[in-house]
């Protein structure tokens, strides 16, 4: 941006700032209301004028809400499922992407196009048949039911292939001549070179799985296998009028993502920009 320090430019600069801040506060208000409600006694929730900073803050809403449902258990389940899906998907997508980028074999092009086509089949479209298949496998209410079908996603394959296409063949050839073997070449030469892509993909898959609702909602009825999103949905359904506790548990559910966002802002934003390729 080239800005001569003219009067008009400076005015525009501040007008923009005021507009963006005002709009930003508007964006923030629902979240602030959630936070402040989570610290109010129930009687004050709809009191006017709105008390944005409750005095004294009712911290007890948090343990009260947390103890209504086995949220600790849901949290552990979410961690298990999201980590397992991420590892499984990223590892297999890496293999498949490598195969499509750096090998030549019969039927490769057809296979690649077929894999690409699966991108247009989200779970919202296939929920009935996928449910029936998982039921047939006896995987309803199991961890593998929560993990394996979700790990079957071609987005990572597409992404890894794009990154690996640009690795020089000579590097891989050199490793082979040094007797590294195919697996050794992959893990010792290729993976370190595409590590940033692996990391971004991993964060992206993790976030999507951590947040996923539809699939666990359909196949899990056993309370000990529920994940955080399902637990939260059931909690707000059952205790719908205990607004302060519902908002407290919502705040808690938001914390892991917000923390992760603060630590990995760049990769996170890349992930969102990348998701343009998915959905």
């Amino acid at each position, binding site marked *: 941006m080239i800005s001569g320090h003219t009067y008009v430019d400076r005015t525009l600069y501040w007008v923009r700032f005021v507009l963006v801040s005002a709009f930003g506060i508007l964006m923030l208000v629902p979240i602030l209301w959630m936070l402040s409600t989570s610290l109010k006694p129930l009687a004050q929730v709809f009191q006017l004028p709105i008390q944005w900073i409750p005095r004294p803050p009712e911290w007890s809403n948090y343990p009260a809400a947390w103890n209504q449902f086995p949220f600790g258990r849901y949290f552990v389940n979410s961690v298990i499922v999201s980590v397992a899906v991420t590892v499984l998907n990223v590892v297999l997508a890496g293999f498949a992407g490598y195969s499509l980028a750096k090998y030549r074999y019969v039927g490769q092009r057809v296979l690649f196009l077929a894999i690409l086509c699966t991108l247009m089949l989200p779970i919202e479209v296939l929920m009935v048949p996928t449910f029936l298949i998982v039921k047939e496998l006896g995987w309803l209410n199991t961890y593998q039911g929560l993990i394996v079908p979700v790990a079957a996603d071609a987005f990572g394959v597409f992404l890894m292939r794009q990154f690996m296409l*640009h690795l020089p063949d000579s590097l891989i050839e050199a490793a082979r001549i040094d007797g590294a073997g195919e697996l050794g070449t992959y893990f010792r030469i290729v993976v370190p070179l595409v590590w940033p892509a692996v990391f971004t993909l991993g964060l992206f898959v993790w976030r999507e799985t951590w947040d996923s609702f539809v699939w666990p909602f359909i196949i899990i009825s056993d309370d000990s296998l529920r994940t955080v999103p399902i637990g939260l949905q059931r909690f707000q359904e059952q205790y719908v009028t205990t607004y302060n506790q519902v908002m407290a548990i919502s705040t808690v559910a938001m914390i892991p993502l917000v923390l992760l966002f603060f630590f990995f802002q760049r990769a996170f934003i890349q992930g969102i920009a990348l998701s343009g390729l998915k959905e």
Partner: protein
Amino acid sequence: MARPPVRANGLPLGLRDSAGVDARPFTARPAAAPRRRRGLGTLLRSAEARRQLWGYAFLAPMLLLLLVFKFLPMVQAFYLSLTSYDLLSAPRFVGLSNYTALLRDPLFHQSVGATAYFVFGTCVPLWILSLLLALVFNTALPARNVLRLIYFLPAIMPVVVYATVWRFLFHPYGLLNVGLHAIGLPAVDWLGDRRATMPGFILSAEWRFVPYFMIVYLAGLQNIPQEYYEAAAIDGASGLQRFRAITLPLLRPTGLLVIVVSLILMSKVFTNVLIISGGGPDGATRVLSLFIYQTGFQFFKMGLASAASIFLLLGMMVFTLMQLRLFRDGGHD
């Protein structure tokens, strides 16, 4: 001005930025693909065969997963859509009667209408607002990083939290009505009045997705080299001229991407509708994915639900083919 040599292929920030990748159209083969050397002796040829096998081996695990959990379900969706199946007795072949039933079903019509209302009602303002916001954020701005962080919060919060908070906002005494009252407007029965519920949903979707697509636009904007603007400024082009001659054409691939992705994203909306309104009042917000869910898992009409999914699939396929075309055309639009 000569056409700038940009890799304007619509791939956002991450792909190019972190690894310096020039992502090619997916159909292209790598330029330096080694040609198969046949007739170099048995040794080489068996090495070649072994390499091919490794190629298959690396692909196989993911391929197997996709076969079982993507291709098989798709085939089964088609098959089930031709049957009557309630999970208890075996599926019974009924021909196309599920489809004709749906085409005559007023509830299905309502559902298609609700989906179209939501998708287009959300997407059109979304395209404009997210572009405007990205343009503002791409300029010099005090405290830009803090502001950007604030704007990102709605986009990164978990979907269930987002839905829960908005359900609370829609409460008769909730913040939305408090706000309306403050500016002298009457209260709205957001979840009870069938004319108000969908606009409420659209409002909530803008809140979450304007920042989301702003990020995508920002990535596109940041890929436009500053030199073009500088050169144009030296040539005496005004701000508006620079916008029309540089920003708009170079942002076109990103814009197309945003359009297609948002259409797909909105047409599969499910979680927030389920949580906030459950499809009500009177089915006014029963979008297609919710229709499928209720038909299949509440009324156990798996055949009818599958037929409805085929309709949703067709809609998404149109959008996705548009998207794939974009990637193929990217770079030389």
